[in-house]
């Protein structure tokens, strides 16, 4: 299998999810921010400010294209128009990385704008692998597949998440995007052990790490229910889990995601600096 841990064209330092309101400040004083990730779907127009900003940013920063609307886990066929839009974006931008989610979001031509969960079964595995083959072939580049945040389980599941993701990578040659906040959220919600999850994860397939904030709630039985909101800073237990991830799996390009209630740029810079402080000593070893 391909070793994604050494092949990524993203630097093994901190990046942030790009927000248009940070355009000027980011270019003037990026601080520890060395690369950017964009949501592919926000750059699928024909022109105007979004594409002009992206062209300007790509001159300075390596860019990661992160899709949120492909619905790789969908039961139906993939949206060919959407694949074509992704290909068009990747062709002109030539991003340093291209990733999507282990999730579905479209059913019978209705796009639901959320990353919906899948049962981990042989049938789902075949379908997801076929879809990834189709996308990688059409877009003409390998993709990274991200582990999801989940809130519930399927009675139909017959394998664990890591086995499922590893098998997908083996069949398709794709790499993995390890979202450490998603690990923390899913492990809390599913009562899995996050340390064990991280230690079992196939780190040499990981081309990128995500860190983000989550909200805390409870289900109707009083059990903790964490929600992947991307609306606040990364919490201390997730930083600790990230630190462990880097010790176990080595340094990786690490993204700070903050999509809702987006803060002023200096706050993102501080979060990026915190990731860098964990990466740098390991990098130096």
């Amino acid at each position, binding site marked *: 299998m391909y070793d994604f841990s050494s092949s990524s064209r993203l630097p093994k330092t901190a990046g942030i999810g790009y927000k248009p309101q940070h355009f000027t400040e980011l270019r003037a004083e990026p601080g520890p921010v060395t690369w950017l990730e964009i949501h592919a*779907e926000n750059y*699928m*127009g*024909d*022109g*105007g*400010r*979004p*594409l*002009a900003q992206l062209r300007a940013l790509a001159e300075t920063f390596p860019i990661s294209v992160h*899709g*949120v*609307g*492909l*619905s790789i886990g*969908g*039961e139906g066929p993939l*949206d060919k*128009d*959407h694949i074509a*839009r992704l290909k068009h974006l990747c062709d002109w931008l030539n991003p340093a990385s291209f990733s999507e989610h282990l999730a*579905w*979001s*479209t*059913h*019978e*031509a*209705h*796009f*639901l*704008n*959320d990353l*919906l*969960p899948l049962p981990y079964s042989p049938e789902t595995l075949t379908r997801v692998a076929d879809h990834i083959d189709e996308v990688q072939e059409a877009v003409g580049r390998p993709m990274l597949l991200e582990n999801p945040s989940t*809130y*519930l*389980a*399927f*009675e*139909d599941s017959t394998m664990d998440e890591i086995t499922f993701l590893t098998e997908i990578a083996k069949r398709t040659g794709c790499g993995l995007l390890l979202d450490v906040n998603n690990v923390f959220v899913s492990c809390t*919600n*599913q*009562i899995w052990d996050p340390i064990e999850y991280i230690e079992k994860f196939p780190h040499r397939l990981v081309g990128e790490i995500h860190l983000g904030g989550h909200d805390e*709630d409870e*289900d*109707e*039985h009083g*059990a903790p*229910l964490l*929600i992947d909101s991307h609306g606040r800073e990364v919490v201390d237990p997730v930083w600790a889990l990230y630190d462990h991830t880097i010790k176990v799996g080595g340094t990786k390009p690490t993204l700070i995601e903050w999509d809702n209630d987006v803060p002023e740029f200096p706050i993102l810079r501080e979060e990026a600096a915190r990731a860098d402080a964990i990466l740098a000593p390991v990098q130096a070893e």
Partner: protein
Amino acid sequence: MGQTDFTAALLDPEKPVPEGLVDPQGRPAGKRFDVYRNNVTSSLIAALETGFPVLQKLLGESSFKTLATLFLRAHPPTSGALQRYGDAMPGFLAGFKPLASLPYLADIARLELAIRTSYHAADHHPLDPAGLDPEAMMALTPRLAPATHILTSPYPIYSIWRMNMVAGAPKPAPVSEDVLITRVNFDPTPHLLPPGGRQFAEALDGCTPIAAAIEAAMIAAPRADIAGLLTLFLSSQALTLPTEKVQ
């Protein structure tokens, strides 16, 4: 349990949580399923709020939320890219009985959709009259730029839009208004079209030279201010020459 049942239950809070979805103890996933329901609804409401700021102001936050919730259940997005989400809103409003007493809302929705479409439209080289003598200018056959839109309404939609977006703008008078939306660089701007303006734009859209488009404007509005009309279209960069494409 397949994605058909999952989707139906996501969009209809009255439907029970589909079978086979459980918590870690194997109990039915009640509130856990609601997280997905809430994500779908709140993210699409947020997209509609961003896309229709004037509709939201006209209806108020809470009524707009109710409208958006009904709309998204009837018209979920049909594309993974949300740039055009809400293009069914004018039709939905036109047939929406509870708001029948505000018949201009559908046209306001069309105006806001046109502004959003203009924002994402392809870039263009504006027609530049510098160095052209008037005769050469009259013989040109420019096109409406990709970011240019013309709207016509029996309601004062430009004035309603302006009152809600520009501080101190006057109250609308009960007149019909045609609107020109153009984009200089990146920010679309609506302009009130003077008499003859719509016919001028429609003629250009039909590939006629400027001289013939002026004629069309004067037939529709014999007292049209042609100099003013040309100034508006040129200064707002509404026009482009078909041979010039921006890479």
